[in-house]
Every structure is written in C-alpha cells, then in structure tokens.
C-alpha cells in the first residue's frame, strides 16, 4: 500500500486513493475543502479548484515536484508522495484566490438565502477567503426560476460544481437539465422549458453546496438553525426511507437525506448511498408519517451554527484585553446580541 505524507503527517492508504480521500482519513484541519467533489458521484470533482494542494514530491520513484498545484480530489496517491496543504503559504494564497473567484459574481444574499447556516460557500469564504472583495464591477444576474414544481433554481448563487448534473445523470433516467452557454455565461438550465420531473430529482437539492437549488416546500419557512433535526424512517417502496426531519415543534418543516461530516449523503448498511425519493422528501410532512429514531448527530461546523463569528470576537476582545486595550477598541462593533443565533429580535 502506498505511503504518503500530507502536511508532514504520514499515512498508508489503499492503491487508487485520491489525495483528498487520504486527507479525510487523517481528518482535522489538513483536509482540503471541496466544493464540487462528491465521493458518491462518479466523475465529480476537478472543477472548483478549492481543493488544490502542492505536491512537493511526486513519488518515491520520481521525486520531482509537480509543476502546478493539483486538484487533490482527482489526483491519486503514489508511494512516497509528499503533499503540502496548510503548511504551504503559497498554496493557501492560491486557494484564497480561488475563493475570491468563486465569490466574484456571488450575490452574497445570505440574509435571504435558505442555505445560510449550512452553506459550504459560506464556510469556505470564512475559513479560506479574504475579508473583502476587490471586484468593483456589476455582478452577473439571472432571475430565479422553478425547475420542476418542488425545486427553485437561483442561478446567481451557483458555482457550477456540476453535482446536480451528475445526480441527474447517475440517479435518474432521461436527464433533462445541464449546463448551457459558455464561460462566464454558463448556467444550469433545463432542456427548453422542460420541468424536471422524476422520483429522485430532489437529491439535487441535497448535493448543491450553495443555495442555488432549494426546496420550494421549505422556502422562507425558517432559518435552519432554528430547526431541530431528528433522524427518522418509514417504509418506502422507492427508496431506503431513511431521512432527517428538520422540525419546529410538532411541525416537519423539511425532509432531507442524512449527511455525514463532509456534507455528503450517508451510506446504507449495504454500502449503497442513502438517496431519498421525492415522495419522502416533499409529501410526508407529518410526524405521524415517520418513526422517529432520535436526535440527529449533526456536525455543527457551519460558520453560523458553530458560532464562529462569536468566537472570533471573543478572541479579539481577549487579545486586546491582554494587550491592555479597552474592549471597545474592537474593530467589529455590533449591537448587543446581534450575533447570538438564538436572538430572534
């Protein structure tokens, strides 16, 4: 089995593993962020370039460094490979550049976006981006459209990860949406006014890393951090029936598939992916439809739900206190409780 090191951490992985998968086996801060790669979808990855890493040594046989940063999600490991991610400042700078490109035309409409609080782009820009954009030009705009009766497409927010296209290709018959136009004008669209209508189309919402595809039955109902997720199941003849319910009191606001710590849909016991059908997702909105298993063990990694902003503020305040400055010298001046996720004012 090939032995590699990622940020000086050695690991032995099976033949054919990608750098990103190897990093996920190690876990922690050294895992490159991935916006387009989705381990459950074949041929995904390689487009967004956020997972780029520097390969300092190609392999034990050929120790030359790779000339360019490589997409870790699509590069398989070689024995003796030396990879640098967070220990390479130039790699972090390059990634910050990619984040800037992804946000260049993003509307930053998080306050009215249903994805906020579980958005991978939010996390990415917070963890890997810079505080301000240098773009002074008008952002490109599209009107939101309904693709199918249950799914809303906000093309403004899309980062063209191609995940939804791959879901349609690999999960359903007769894909009728894809990418049209080229370059900056590329957009997700359906085949001439066609609606997406098949039993598994809802999974497009689950794989979308941003708020481009949202659930129309959940639109503007609640912020995700005000909902209580529980795991539940039902006997479904179309899918595995294992879901996550996002409840407020007795009300089921939203049904999604169960996701793991990487934001990907979990596997069933038999190793297949636990995609869910549209009936479970959109039709079964009563608690009585479901057998509740218990509260979900979800990763509160999101910048909002994990109180990242609050933590940052307290670090700044404490540092300034230690330096003898007064707390009101803090740069971020916000109203009382403005960042408290439970503050509903």
């Amino acid at each position, binding site marked *: 089995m090939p032995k590699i090191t990622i940020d000086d951490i050695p690991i032995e992985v099976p033949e054919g593993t990608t750098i990103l998968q190897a990093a996920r086996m190690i876990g922690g801060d050294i895992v490159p962020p991935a916006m387009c790669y989705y381990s459950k979808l074949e041929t995904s990855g*390689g*487009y*967004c*370039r956020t997972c*780029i890493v520097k390969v300092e040594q190609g392999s034990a046989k050929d120790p030359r460094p790779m*000339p*360019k*940063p490589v*997409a870790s999600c*699509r590069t398989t490991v070689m024995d003796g490979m030396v990879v640098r991610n967070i220990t390479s400042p130039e790699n972090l700078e*390059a990634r910050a*550049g*990619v984040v*800037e*490109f*992804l946000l*260049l*035309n993003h509307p930053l409409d998080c306050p009215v976006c249903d994805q906020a609080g579980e958005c991978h782009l939010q996390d990415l820009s917070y963890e890997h981006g810079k505080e301000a954009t*240098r*773009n002074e*030009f008008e952002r490109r705009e599209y009107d939101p459209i309904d693709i199918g009766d249950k799914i809303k497409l906000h093309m403004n927010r899309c*980062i*063209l990860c191609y995940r939804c296209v791959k879901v349609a290709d690999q999960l359903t018959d007769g894909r009728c949406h*894809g*990418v049209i*136009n*080229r*370059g*900056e*004008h*590329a957009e997700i669209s359906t085949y001439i006014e066609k609606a997406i209508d098949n039993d598994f189309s809802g999974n497009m919402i689950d794989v979308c890393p941003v708020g481009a595809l949202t659930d129309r039955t959940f639109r503007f109902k609640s912020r995700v951090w005000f909902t209580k997720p529980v795991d539940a199941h039902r006997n479904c003849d179309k899918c595995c029936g294992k879901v996550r319910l996002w409840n407020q009191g007795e009300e089921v606001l939203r049904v999604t598939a169960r996701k793991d710590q990487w934001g990907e849909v979990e596997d069933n016991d038999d190793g297949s992916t636990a995609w869910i059908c549209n009936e479970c997702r959109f039709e079964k909105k009563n608690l009585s439809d479901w057998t509740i298993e218990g509260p979900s063990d979800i990763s509160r990694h999101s910048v909002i739900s994990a109180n990242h902003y609050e933590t940052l503020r307290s670090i700044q305040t404490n540092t300034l206190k230690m330096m003898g400055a007064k707390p009101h010298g803090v740069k971020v001046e916000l109203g009382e409780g403005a960042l408290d996720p439970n503050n509903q004012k």
Partner: protein
Amino acid sequence: MSRKLLLKNDHIQGINTLKTYKENGGYSVLEKALKGMSPDAIVEEVKKSGLRGRGGAGFPTGMKWSFLAKPEGVPRYLVCNADESEPGTFKDRYLMERIPHLLVEGMILSSFALGANTSYIYIRGEYFYVSRILEQAIEEAYQAGYLGKNILGTGFDLDLYVQVGAGAYICGEETALLESLEGKRGNPRIKPPFPAVAGLYGCPTVVNNVETIAAVVPIIEMGGDEYAKIGIGKSTGTKLISASGHINKPGVYEIELGLPVEEFIFSEEWCGGIKGGRKLKAVVAGGSSVPILPADLILKTANGEPRLMSYESLGEGGFVTGTMLGSGGFIVMDEDTSIVKNLYTFSRFYHHESCGQCSPCREGTGWMERILKKILDGRGSLADIDLLWDIQSKIEGKTICPLGEAAAWPVAAAIRHFRPEFEAYVTNPDSIKDIKHYYRLKN
C-alpha cells in the same frame, strides 16, 4: 532560398486535385511505406527525425506515438487537430486549402504506423469551406484506393472522416476536442488518463496537429536522419510561420528552424521589414497566448546573442526575458501600436472563449477584461495594474487545461515589459494619444 518540404509545390495550379498532386510525386511515399515498411519502422523514422508537435506545445511526436497503449481487441484512433483557433495562426488553413492531399497522405501514413483503422480530422467551424476541400480530397483518395478496405493490396483498412466543430477555441485543446468529437459539450477532461491510454470513446488515441501529420510525409520520403539535419539542435526540420501585423509581406512562410528572428522580420525574402519604415515595437512570436516581447528582447536574447526561430532560442530566458515558438503565429507590432489596447483585445478573446468549467478561468478572464477596459477608458488607477498582475498569477497553473495559462501569460508579459505604458493610461491619458512616446521606456 530556404529549403521547403511542406510547401514546395503550393504554387502549382491544381495541386488540390489528386491528378496534379500525383504528377508531382504525391502518394509515392505512401506506396513505398505501405509496401516496404513495417508500422514500427515508420514510428522509428519519426523518432529519429526529432519532429516536435507543431500545434504549440512542441512535444516530440515520435515519443507521443510510442506512448500509445496497444491493448488487444481495442481500436486505436488517430485524430488530426485542425481546430486552428489561436489568434495570429493561420498556417494549417493554408496547408489544407492548397495541398489537402498532403494531409490526407500524412493521415494514412500515420494511421498505418499507429495501427488505427478509423481516423478523424476535427476542423474548426469557421473553416467550413476548407472541410469541403478536404472531403473532396478524401473522396478522390477513396476512389484511387488509398482509403477504404485493403489499401493498395496491403490488407490495411482505413476510414477517414472530417468532423466540423462549432467554432469554439477550447475545442483545440486535445481532450475538449475528443469530447466534442464524441458529441458532448467541449469541456477539457481532467488528465490523467491521457488520450494515449483513454482518449476517443475511451480508446487509445493520438491527437496531432495538421502540420505535424503533414510533416510525416517528407520525413518518410527523406528518412528521419536526413530530416534531423535540417534545423538547429533539438528544433529539427521546417516550420510554417503565419506572419501578420505591421510587416510589408504578411503571409505563411516555411522556414528552416534556426533562422535568425531579425532576418525573418527584415529580409526581403521573408516579411520584408516593417510597414512604412516605422520602428519595430514588439512581437508576439507564437500565437496570442505566448508572452509578448519588446523589440530589443525579440531580436537578441538577454545575454546579447541573436534570437533564432527555434523552440530553444525563443524560450531562452524563461518568461522573464523569453517567450515560446508556440504554434508559429508571428504577430509584429510597430511603434504606433498600443500594447494595452492589444492586450485588451486578447483578454476579450479569452474571456469569450473560456469554457466555464473551472472557476479561476471562468471568473478571472472576465474580470481581467473589465479592468483593462477600465484602464483603457481612463478610469483606471495604479492599483488596478497590480490587481491585474495578481489575478493573472492566480489563474496561471490553477486550471484544468492550458487555457488558464493562455489567458494569463499575455497579461503578465505585457505588464512585465510595458508597465510604463499602462501607467501612462492611468496617470496621463493625454500623452498616450501619441503612443510613440512610450517606445523607448523600459522598466
């Protein structure tokens, strides 16, 4: 007079017909090779010739051919890249228009060498009329028994098709070309696997430029060793150069590699000097994507040696003081040319032609274009020049295919060599009305 191998008969009336082509020695090499040589012997001759890919990257063709995987029971393909879309390059069009049979003969020879029984010529959409000429030539070749089943009684079968693209620059990238040929959206594939292992329809495939395939004919005719004697060092043979811009005699020239750049621009035999006796300002030596060089650096290298038309000499000094031979799109600019305006034109092109698959190129090319427009309109600031530099550095090398580099290099080189001119657009817009002032300014 320089030696001509590809274009030696281009002046003959009717050379595009099989009859005239054969009268001038056409298809004799093919007959000789098919009857007297083994496929491996042809590959060996090409290796010996030192022929390098003429499409831009300059990868040794013989080596590329020897990488082709040969699993049992799987078809192999040869694809000719005639999607010549690099601004400033028009040599393949001339070759195909004038002597289509040279390409057809080269395709048959190369397919025989590689063991391909189906081959394609992928031609750009704008060359629609050229595809008609090629199809006519292929039809003639079928009738003469050079294509089809059991060619010349040797038992070798070959079908040759012309496929017209839809006019996308990106489809000149070999993997995007293969996607497009398969009928899909022309997005570059992620490598590895390389086409030599999994190319067209997942089968081993070789993709070569038109000029490369045409050059196989003279190589087999004269022998690889003899071909390698032409040229200089590792740049062997002859190269078609598409000369354009402010020169007295623009056109397609076949040169022996190693010709001094100064002679090429100023001698009567070639470009014939700058129009109107004006001064040379800058040259883009190998198609729009290679770095632009100011007059002093294109005529002489940084250490004072004369610059030659060869892969090595043009590349000397890396990108700091050198450039690339690229596809041979030689664009000459005189003292009246605004480098910033020229760069804006190039950037607009790359913005338009980005496929939109990976984010740095999709977003960055448009951003660079907008900033350049702003500078041109006199609304720019000095910080914008630094921002441009930063953007190009964040695109270069971060993308799936080389279009990212192609968009970034011209920007980097223009700022590197002509920064004072950019600054003049920002700080003193009136002065650039007479661009000649900035001729002698250097960093």
